[in-house]
């Protein structure tokens, strides 16, 4: 072995030792970038979210000729045009109109706002609650663990879709006085969906916490005088985060599908408020005269759900610590 070679190795070793460690997020990002479909999905989703936020604002300031009113009106969710019902796509209505002559494109965009908002809120609520309960369950063990896990098993075993439908059929007429009707409906749906969705996060977090509970840093935190709650929230929950993020991303796709199914069946968000699901609600009646109405809302659901699935798949690879670059 020559002297020069040793020098090179030593230099490299030193460079490795002295260099600041790469930030974890950067590593994750690099890994995610290698998953091309996931990156494309991420870009697509960001664009979709920007689109549903910005595009309606622009459209609201533009006008179209409303035939039945005989004047130029701004695009709006509920403005009807009974003289142009189920109209085929034109330049004024790029995606046509629905059975009341409302502009499908504008409704599709605001529906996207609500559908995505519900999906994100439900997932946030259910993952946070699930993660907290899971961490509590794993941290305290004994009867707390036993109780929470029995509840989890109970929720998992219930027939989900029939129960969701029953719950929403019971609660769909419930109005929260303080909120405008569409928000009140959204809150009801969010609560119902979160009720059934937290178990996955709970199990993941519990498993993670069980392996962390007896490690030194937990004892150190205790020695430093942190309360149980502080240890759970500050030290246990963040450690369980990577797998939860993956399950949350896949959960977004699931919530979009379930919410649209509920709304499609008439048990979710009610007309005239638009979501992707309830835009398809009465589409079958006009199937033979206006088939394009059936196309776009479903396509939106499909694309959003597919993108969240690919993103979740990519994130799973990126966040999996067993996977080395």
């Amino acid at each position, binding site marked *: 072995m020559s002297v020069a070679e040793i020098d090179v190795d030593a230099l490299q070793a030193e460079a490795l030792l002295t260099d600041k460690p790469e930030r974890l997020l950067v590593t994750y990002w690099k890994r995610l970038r290698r998953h091309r479909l996931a990156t494309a999905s991420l870009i697509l989703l960001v664009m979709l979210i920007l689109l549903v936020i910005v595009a309606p604002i622009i459209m609201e300031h533009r006008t179209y000729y409303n035939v039945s009113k005989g004047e130029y009106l701004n695009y709006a969710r509920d403005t009807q045009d009974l003289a142009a019902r189920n109209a085929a796509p034109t330049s004024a209505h790029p995606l046509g109109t629905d059975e009341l002559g409302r502009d499908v494109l504008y409704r599709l965009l605001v529906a996207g706002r609500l559908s995505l908002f519900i999906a994100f809120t439900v997932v946030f609520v259910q993952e946070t609650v699930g993660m907290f309960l899971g961490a509590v369950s794993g941290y305290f063990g004994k009867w707390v663990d036993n109780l929470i896990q029995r509840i989890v098993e109970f929720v998992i*075993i*219930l*027939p989900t879709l029939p129960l969701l439908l*029953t719950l929403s059929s019971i609660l769909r007429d419930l109005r929260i006085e303080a909120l405008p009707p569409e928000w009140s409906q959204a809150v009801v749906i969010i609560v119902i969906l979160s009720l059934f969705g937290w178990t996955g996060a709970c199990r993941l977090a519990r498993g993670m916490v069980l392996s962390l509970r007896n490690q030194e840093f937990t004892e150190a935190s205790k020695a430093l005088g942190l309360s149980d709650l502080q240890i759970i929230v500050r030290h246990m929950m963040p450690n369980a985060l990577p797998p939860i993020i993956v399950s949350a991303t896949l959960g977004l796709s699931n919530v979009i599908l379930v919410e649209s*199914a509920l709304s499609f*069946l008439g048990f979710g968000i009610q007309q005239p408020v638009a979501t992707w699901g309830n835009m398809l609600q009465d589409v079958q009646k006009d*199937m033979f005269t206006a088939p394009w109405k059936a196309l776009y809302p479903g396509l939106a659901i499909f694309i959003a759900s597919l993108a969240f699935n690919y993103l979740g798949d990519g994130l799973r690879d990126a966040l999996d610590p067993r996977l080395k670059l």
Partner: protein
Amino acid sequence: MTNYLIRRGFQMVIVVIVATIAIFALLNAVPGGPLSGLNLAADAKSRFSPEDIARLEAMLGLNKPFYLAYLTWLLGEDWVDEVGATIGNPGPADKMWDTGTWVDFQSPTCKNVGGTNAEWDGDGISPCRRGVIRWDWGQSWSLARGQTVTSVIGSRVQNTVILMSSVTVISLIVAIPIGMISAVKQYSKLDYAVTTFSFFGIAMPVFWFGLLMIILFGLKFKEWGLPYFPTGDVFTTRVTPGSLQDVLNIQPRSLADRIAHLFLPVTVLTLLYLAGWSRFMRSSMLEVLRQDYVRTARAKGLRERAVIVKHAARNALIPLITIVVFQIPGIFSGAILTETIFNYPGMGRLFIDSLNRDDWPIVMAILFISAILVVIATLVGDILYTIVDPRIRFD
């Protein structure tokens, strides 16, 4: 094992009872209910008087406090006066307007015969409700008024079983080989196709897929002059010229007619099941192929075919038990969305219709039966695991 079974059986009963109590509580706690729409009639003449409404409430059993409603639903009402008399609690006065005793909580028919089924000859509907536990599921309120819940469900369940079992069988037959081949030839073109397909299937909203199929096979086929498929119902009532039944000369109500009607719903459901199941099969097979015993089988010089079929495939099939077993409740309760889209008179449609019409006896019956089936399916699945895979033990 016996201990385990006893404990599980106990848990199952509790799960089912708690679930039904929760649903019952919700149905009763929320204002509105099946009678809320009655007085929407505009003219004063056709409105119901408070007495009428009270009578209707008594008939449907809505006057009862929640816990009593649940108990009579579960156990029947012929014991209400006896037990009530022993407790001696007269309950809320406004609901017990007649005699001021527990007897008021019995339905009028039951009250007329003195609160007992002793004189009932066992024919038709008993004057006193006997409760679910004695196989009295009550009568439909609105969907098929006056018919018993069992007869309503009986008229639908056959259609759903036919639909769901054909979907299950076809999907399994196709999904197992596809998933296995896709795992054995990982990263091949076929594997990519299968993976992409399953992603599409998971993300696809069933009802939209159904609509697209109706547009293609019903609408467009008709436009193009091809024999188009029926898009709803189970049998043809009137053969229209140019339809599949007309072209193939299928008689209404024949087996071929049924198959023609099953084609679209079965295709939709099968493709979606395939997507999930082939992916499941693939990952299960990939897991097994990595195991030591597969390497051992190769090392001792077995042919690749023997390794795959005899050593890998048999073990990869074990997790499939979960899927097959969890189909059992599905075969009863049906596919809510697909049946709605294709207007297929099965259990899923029945459930949606009875929810829409506030037909609580039917809703409760379907929920109760599916809860029981799910719970049993879970247990059966766990037991099957121990039989198939001796490494798994329950204590």
